[in-house]
């Protein structure tokens, strides 16, 4: 038995050494570009480093981007902001004007898979090259990128919807949950509505509901199924007009829905107002909006989207101040 084991161990060791030889050999044979990776130059150089003052919150480092001849072709700023799970660190490559974004690279993030992690998708990142900082989401005034300051208007002044993804979030937790509504507009029509609620631990009710962790009644539709029905109603009617709400905040307009819906309809209308664009008054006040770009948020990932916007704007603030010194 022991001879058998010793023979086995020797064979295992030999094969393991050969395997590591193959693994290491593969790595050595693959041509590695030390100066650039696929998504851009996120390797910090040792020259051309810009001094980052501690007063610039969230800005980790910055340096000059140079070509092979040593000429400065732009500036790279590594900035971070708090996302949903943890810090989101971005490298923003600016043109020489310090405003136009050449490239955006996600250096690190641990956002939730399927939600905030979509920030690393090529489809999402390709919107950034060519955009001008600072950035804001569709519906936010460029001079005020804080979504909490949005002016809420009545649904009667909703204009033609602009294509994009719009997110509306409740201000407070109610019953331990905060509602978030995301709508998607394509060709001026609402094509997707998602209503979810998040608890203080960051768990989404749609997930808890579909996995049986959030149960309202033994029979009857789950919370997620009811939310989906309400969303389908809005898409079908292209508004919340079909959802009649009684004094208890419930509706009998949508079969099978017994949950309170007034928070849902409020947030849908808020999102639709964003989609309809700024009012004439807001447009007249946007004197500082020149050169600012709108970017798409990540559907269903408000905090992750805000982190991206904040990190980019922090990077812009630093490089703008640096160039204007």
């Amino acid at each position: 038995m022991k001879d058998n084991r010793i023979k086995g161990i020797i064979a295992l060791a030999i094969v393991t050494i050969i395997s590591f030889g193959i693994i290491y050999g593969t790595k050595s044979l693959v041509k590695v570009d030390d100066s650039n990776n696929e998504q851009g130059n996120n390797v910090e150089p040792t020259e051309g480093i810009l001094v980052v003052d501690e007063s610039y919150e969230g800005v980790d480092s910055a340096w000059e981007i140079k070509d092979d001849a040593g000429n400065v072709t732009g500036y790279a700023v590594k900035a971070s902001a708090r996302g949903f799970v943890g810090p989101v660190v971005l490298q923003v490559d600016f043109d020489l004007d310090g405003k136009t974004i050449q490239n955006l690279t996600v250096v690190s993030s641990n956002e939730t898979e399927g939600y905030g992690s979509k920030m690393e998708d090529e489809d999402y990142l390709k919107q950034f090259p060519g955009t001008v900082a600072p950035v804001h989401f569709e519906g936010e005034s460029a001079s005020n990128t804080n979504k909490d300051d949005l002016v809420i208007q009545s649904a009667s002044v909703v204009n033609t919807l602009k294509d994009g993804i719009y997110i509306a979030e409740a201000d407070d937790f109610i019953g331990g949950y905060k509602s978030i509504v995301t709508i998607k507009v394509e060709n001026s029509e609402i094509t997707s509505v998602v209503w979810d609620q998040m608890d203080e631990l960051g768990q989404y009710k749609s997930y808890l509901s579909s996995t049986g962790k959030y149960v309202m009644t033994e029979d009857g539709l789950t919370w997620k199924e009811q939310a989906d029905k309400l969303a389908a109603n809005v898409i079908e009617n292209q508004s919340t007009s079909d959802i009649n709400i009684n004094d208890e905040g419930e509706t009998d307009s949508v079969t099978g829905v017994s949950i309170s819906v007034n928070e849902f309809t409020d947030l849908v209308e808020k999102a639709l107002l964003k989609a309809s664009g700024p009012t004439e008054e807001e447009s007249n006040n946007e004197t500082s909006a020149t050169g600012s770009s709108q970017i798409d948020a990540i559907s269903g990932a408000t905090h992750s989207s805000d982190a991206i916007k904040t990190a980019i704007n922090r990077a812009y603030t630093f490089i703008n101040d640096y160039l204007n010194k």
Partner: protein
Amino acid sequence: MINNIEKTPNISPHLKTNKTSKNIMVDVIIALIPVFIGSIYFFGTRSILIVFSAVFTCVLSEYIWQKASKKQITINDYSAVVTGLLIAFNMPVQTSIWTIVIASIFSIIVTKQFFGGIGGNFANPALVGRAIIMLLWPAQVAKYVTTYHASVDAVSSATILSLLKNGNDFSQFTKWDMFIGNIPGAIGETSVILLVIGFLYLSYRKIVNPVVTGVYLLTVVLITFVFGPQGLFTGDYLTHLLSGGLMIAACYMITDYASFAPRIRVTLAVIAGILTAGIRLWGIYPEGACFAILITNCLAGLVDRIIKPHIYGMKLKRDKV
């Protein structure tokens, strides 16, 4: 004629084997050494901390429980060490240590000791530990990073199965990358070649039944090939075979039914394969091996009652209609 030799009957067992629990566990540990070295190579020295945390916590938990309940101390059978290794190898390198500690404690005490210790556990302890963390702190086991990172700032990356599930491009990872382990994932699950080497060692030592593993893998490959995203027989079965936790599950976890007859083990392997492929293709999780094997663990008793094992020395008699 009376024989002068005093004859006394021997007591059973009359047939003995050198295969003790301890010997088996030692062989499994030896088989996992290449995987451990690979985890350090691909994900850095933090893998050592993760493995040490898991193993230490598992052994300590088992010792404290057995001491407190005045049972025989069995930590020297190394089963807790194996559990710790498997827990560690199922975790991403950026997983917090406290998460690993909780998973280890839960797997040893709840899954194993509550049910009488080794052999009495109703499910694979390591997988139960991982499942608990996935359910309670999902973000902790979602911190996948790319390999070969030399600095502290690892680059986060979705796993291949996650990219596949969401329809995203993962062409930056070749099949060869998946085979050698140069892909994001848990520290012990990425390198197919190293896992297979260890499995071959266990097969040579007759610790595992390669037929069971083969049936499990074949089932997953068939289903993922047949039910492809572009229609029947268009599935990317190679990606499914070479990525995720399939190989570590096939080599070191699906083989965990030593007490069952071979035909039952093969049946369970088929069930686990169907569930693994089903969760991967139609479930909400990109990876299905963990929950598939746990579900199969729960079904093992039922399957055992339904399928009668073959009695050695007896031919099967078919009833005449």
